[in-house]
């Protein structure tokens, strides 16, 4: 008996014509989701752990304040003094009325400093804050 492989006469090809379109779609997705501004953090900090965490839904509303190990405070790209926070945050709030301030404070920082920063934020009417923390495992 003769065995013969049956081959279908239909050409087997994956259509690649739409590949660029698909790639462009992916590309657009990543372009939209990318947040380019990565601030260079000048202070040394380690976030505390917590369990009752909330997610910040809207990243565009967030503005960060870092408080480092040495008690230095950073906003945007520069180290600032406590007295300057009010002015900086007030102008930020005028651009973005529903601003959320995310405080990234070092684990061992003194509460006195954090309270001072909070008082300045209250004066600047930035009342929505968020203490940044990592998920406790």
């Amino acid at each position, binding site marked *: 008996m003769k065995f013969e492989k049956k081959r279908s006469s239909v050409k087997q090809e994956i259509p690649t014509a739409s590949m660029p379109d698909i790639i462009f779609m992916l*590309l657009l997705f990543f372009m939209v989701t990318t947040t380019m501004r990565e601030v260079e953090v000048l202070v040394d900090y380690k976030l505390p752990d917590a369990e009752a965490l909330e997610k910040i839904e809207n990243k565009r509303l967030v503005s960060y304040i870092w408080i480092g190990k040495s008690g230095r405070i950073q906003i945007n790209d520069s180290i600032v003094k406590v007295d300057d926070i009010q002015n900086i945050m007030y102008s930020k709030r005028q651009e973005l009325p529903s601003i959320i301030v995310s405080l990234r404070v070092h684990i061992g*920082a003194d*509460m*006195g400093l954090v309270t001072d920063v909070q008082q300045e934020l209250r004066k600047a009417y930035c009342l929505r804050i968020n203490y940044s*923390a990592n998920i406790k495992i």
Partner: protein
Amino acid sequence: MLLKKKRSMEANIPSSSMADIAFLLLIFFLVATVIDVDTGIGLTLPEYVPPEEIEDVKVDPDRMASILINENNDVLLGGEPISLFQIKNTLKPRIISKIDLPKNKKLIVSLKTDRKTVYSAYISALDQIKMAFFEVRDEYSNSRFGTKYDDLSEETQKEVKDAIPIIISLAEPEMVK
């Protein structure tokens, strides 16, 4: 005269490399994207009132749960010294007992720290307080609607929120005289 039609040359942009270029861009944005969600403990600060204008409002002591953390991370809850990790279980029965009370009788948790208190102790305390409220909310919605708080619809979520509002008051920092 014979007019000869000019044969138009077909002008083509080579598009075979388009996919490659798109891939390159794609890889760049893939690498540059940070999809980490910011997590943290949310809080709304009270409005700033100048120290001269601060008015003392009398609150029923039964409504208040005042937590004090000193510089050695010792915790006082309503005058009783407890450990940091007992806060949740101490608060929970007090929150539960106030579920059916009207809005102006709900529990207020007041948190006060020393200037030298370590930040992580403050966050742990805040975490405990929030967890107490979240757990009571979950239990309440479980008994009433049969699901967790997060799975409820928006209206029922609001109902639970009204029954168990999270009221955390940060004590006004004391002036050093």
